[in-house]
């Protein structure tokens, strides 16, 4: 009898090993809280350059948010739609710090998703897109007909089409929209008014540049750039960056607790340091009206298209 039991258990050996291994992996996964940050077209939004920021934010969340107390918090960052999509799948994040375009394109349809807070930055509690040209360039969006407009190296075309530009001035129809390898170089070419390609075989300069709120602020601060440029068009207001909770682990209480954690950032040394890096005065509750308005526009124009 004993031998029979022994042999039965012997057969179970490999299965048990696998089960234990699986349980261990599960336990490890449960011990980690991943979050992602998505900033399309931002050259410094890489794991190498933004490593310090991601670590600080992870440390802050680990210290201040009770749900993450016993977990290893890890941050990941992406600056293109492709890498952001990959991160979303591979890291299974519980939190996402994203732009409105990524939210609309990738998170809107997710079942377990809740928008927790928004992150106003660089002195504005709402975002916008801007078209800038050289100071002697076209005067309006209408004058850009059949011209070339360049923007940051990664962006969401559906978002620009449905939310940012009015129906009568659609990129690809009214003007050509291209990704710029180096926006600073584009500005140099515009300032130098060197649209002819200088007989070097290079692509000529663009007629206008499409900038988001942050890029506009960056160039606006440059004394050699802004006096040489002018803004010819600006989009309607858009929500700033959003914090989205993902997955089934959230409930009303933990969402509120997370919002409180964000709200009190300015009162801690580490939190204040993070906000300074983000150039933000602090996280605020979401402007639901604006978000609904933009979401509705995104969805309705999708149907229209």
């Amino acid at each position, binding site marked *: 009898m004993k031998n029979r039991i022994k042999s039965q258990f012997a057969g179970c050996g490999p299965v048990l090993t696998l089960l234990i291994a699986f349980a261990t992996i599960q336990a490890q996964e449960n011990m980690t809280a991943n979050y992602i940050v998505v900033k399309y077209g931002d050259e*410094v939004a890489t794991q*190498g350059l933004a490593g*310090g920021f991601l670590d600080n934010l992870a440390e802050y969340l680990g210290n201040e948010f009770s749900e993450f107390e016993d977990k290893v918090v890890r941050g990941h960052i992406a600056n293109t739609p492709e890498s952001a999509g990959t991160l979303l799948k591979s890291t299974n994040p519980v939190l996402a710090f994203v732009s409105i375009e990524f939210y609309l394109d990738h998170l809107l349809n997710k079942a377990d998703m809740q928008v927790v807070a928004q992150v106003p930055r660089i002195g504005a509690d709402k975002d916008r897109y801007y078209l800038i040209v050289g100071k002697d360039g076209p005067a309006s969006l209408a004058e850009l007909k059949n011209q070339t407009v360049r923007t940051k190296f990664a962006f969401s075309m559906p978002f620009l089409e449905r939310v940012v530009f009015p129906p009568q001035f659609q990129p690809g129809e009214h003007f050509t929209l291209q990704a710029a390898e180096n926006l600073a170089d584009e500005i*140099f070419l515009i300032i130098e008014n060197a649209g002819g390609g*200088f007989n070097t075989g290079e692509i000529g300069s663009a007629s206008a540049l499409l900038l988001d709120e942050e890029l506009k602020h960056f160039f606006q601060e440059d004394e050699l750039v802004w006096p040489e440029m002018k803004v010819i068009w600006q989009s309607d207001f858009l929500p700033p960056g959003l914090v989205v909770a993902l997955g089934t682990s959230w409930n009303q209480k933990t969402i509120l607790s997370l919002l409180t954690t964000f709200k009190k950032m300015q009162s801690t040394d580490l939190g204040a340091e993070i906000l*300074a890096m983000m150039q933000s005065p602090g996280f605020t509750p979401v402007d639901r009206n604006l978000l609904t308005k933009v979401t509705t526009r995104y969805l309705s124009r999708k149907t229209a298209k």
Partner: protein
Amino acid sequence: MKKSAKKSWHKTISRYCETLVVKRPIGTILVAALLALIGGYIYFFELYIISDRKQLISRNIESNQRYLEYIEEFGDNELLILVVQADERAPQPDSQQRAAMKKVADVWTDELRKQPEILPEVTKRIAWNGSGSAPLLYLSHAELQTMFQPILKHENLLHKVAENPALHNQFEVLNMLLKNAGNDTSLSRATLSSLLQALTQGLRALNLKLHGESNENDSILTTLIALNKHYDSNGYFFSENSRILTVYAKVIGDATAGNRYATALSYARTSLQKALATVPANMAIKAGIAGMPALESEELETTRGDFTRGAVLSLLGVTALFVLMFGNLVRPALAALCLGFSLALTFAFTYVTVGHLSLLAMIFAVILIALGVDFAIHFLTHYEQALANDMEPAQAIQHTYDAIGSALWMGGLTTAAAFLSASLTEFIGLAELGFIAGSGLIICLLVMYYVYPAMLFLLDTNFPKLRRGIKSHKRGNTLSDKLAGMKTNNSALKAFVLLFLLLITAAFLFGQYRFDTNLLKLQAVDGAANQWQRILIKNGDRSLFAIGTFKNRFDMAQARASFAKIPGIVHHTDTLFPYDEIGKRNYLGSVCSTLTEIKINQPELVSIFKLKRQVWGLRQQLRRFRKANAEAETAILPLQTETERLYKTLSSSSAGKLGKTVSTMQQAFTAQLFSARQAAREHLCPDLLKEESIPESLQRTFKSKNGQLALFIYPKQNTWEQESLQEFVQSIRKIEPNVIGELVSLYENGNSIIRSFLMATLYSLAAIILLLLLWTRSIETVLFSILPLVSSVAVLLFLMRNLPVPIEWNFTNFFALPILIGIGVDSGIHIVRAWHFNDDETLRSALKAVILSTTTTILGFGILATSEHMGVSSLGKVLVIGISACLFAALTLLPISLKLFVKRGH
């Protein structure tokens, strides 16, 4: 029977002294004065002080013997080290500062070489004959990697530059390099910082050139290539962080001088002032002198100053206190004169017996003043009491001899025995000090016992008016009266004693037992040599190392390979031959082929537009970096400023004029590329190293007259700290058991000194107990006599650890223990002896004498606590705490215990 025999023995001595003092006072004083004059002459003209530590250490330690043999064969390694430091605020010295640092080294070296009789050899750099990669072979693998890895890593960028050496293309490459660097997480902060600094420097040079303010042909990329600052192509010794440049000078000490290195050091310092005057002040170059001879010389000066100042102040302070206590000037002044006699006689005795004084033995003067005056106080207290009781001077002297003569001798002899027992220890410095201090105390006792009473007798016989000032003690108005007449409840007393004993036990359990062997912590904090030695340590000290000697190259290579396997212990090793020569030649070979295969074209025609576009790109990239990383702000700002300036220059100047300048620069840079490739062929494609091509200075250092080879083993950790030193010596001994050198000597001699101090403590305790037993024949009396001492040691140990600023035992203050043992028992003896007289007056006088004598001792040693030398200062502090605790126990615990357990008069 025995008791009566003892009494008659005492009486005989007392009678003899009385006869000498009363019948021949002038003769006694004259003989003493004459001998003191001889002693004074000897001190000022004959006695010399040895400062060489090697003469104070034990010859019996094997490694010391081997080290002395090594010095005989290879020459002494005690070197003065010139430390030249660039401004600490900048991340790294730039090329102008490096040139200025070298200039200081050159001038100092030239000046020192003018005095070969005291500074026979000065080494500022290793001068290699001809070209070749030999110097590179002496760098470590890690250093070679730091130097050449960026070249190998960015080979594609080098090709791109060589393909078109035009300035705009250089900037394009630079932009790519910066972009890569920003994304490269493997790059350390230091490397990035060096990169930014080199770029700033390059752009500054470019700006100057474009403004016609400079004719130098440095390009941005040649500046980048020179990123590794540790390696100096001229062979100067830069530290690994490149912040420090060192020059080494052998120095010959003058054995006959009090401070053997003083002349050489003074000359070296004057020369340094001359050298520093040759570089502009805005270079922010500082320099100073470190190394063992400088430390030794400075320590000698500080200690000598401290001891002389301490001795004089002690003498004045103790005498002043004496005057205050006794309310008259003449008798204390005579005691001070007797102290002077004692000191002079001890110098004479030292000259005859030991022949010299040492740095450590100089402390005896303070000991003698602090303790010698106690004999006078005890004598004078009882003598004045006798005069106050209307005795004649002769009777008073007789009465004093009878009352305290034996206690005075016993107290003095036990204290002297405590010091003399130190002469049995292996550490020569301590043995000599013990012998001199012990003998000096006996001499002082003799002077105070014969000469001082003779002076008092003469005084009070010839000037009877002076006696009128002396008044008898009134009961109940002084602390000693209160203590003598103390009436207490028996059970409360027992509880108090028990509690006190418990506290003593606790103090022993939680006391200070750690020993700090860091010699640098003993030196004066603001000593120049000490400060520069610390700077040297902070920047990777190469002045301290262990040495292994080998008969052949094979054995040495094997040992070397073993040392390389313990990188946590051994930083690196140096010898005549480079380590892993073949491995390094292979590595350099790969660098060589990479560089020599680069194809160099002529640059494109100058395009100011393209150049401006690349500079604009760089400018925006820097702005983005600063935005993204607040920490980088300071590092990037200077580079950003230079970039802005360049961009504005390109935007505002006339294209034709600029084009010409840039064209010249491009041509010069292309020529530089060609010569760099040629240099790479010559320097990086190594030939086999031959012994005869190795510079003579290296041969002299690492090869003896008899062909023995020396291997220098450098520690990884700061070996001024005991734990690191112990780990280092013990670990390297597992590989090479016969290692020697300064570090091994520090370790062995440190252990020897600690052993010696411990033995001295035990010997003195044993000697005191033995003497007391012989004197009293009563274990009970011995135990009571040493009670204040035992409790004071416990309190001292406890306080040393638990004070707001704890004090650790070190090589200097450890000597406080034998001193404390010698002094501590003295108070006990006097009080116990007085207790045995069934006479309140004697007890009162004894207590008064104990209070007065201990107070003067505290003052005497307390002066040392204000010394500049941290070791001497801590010795003073430990003694003040210990003796104060001893006094407290002698006035509280001892009388209470005596009252409880010993019947008066027994």
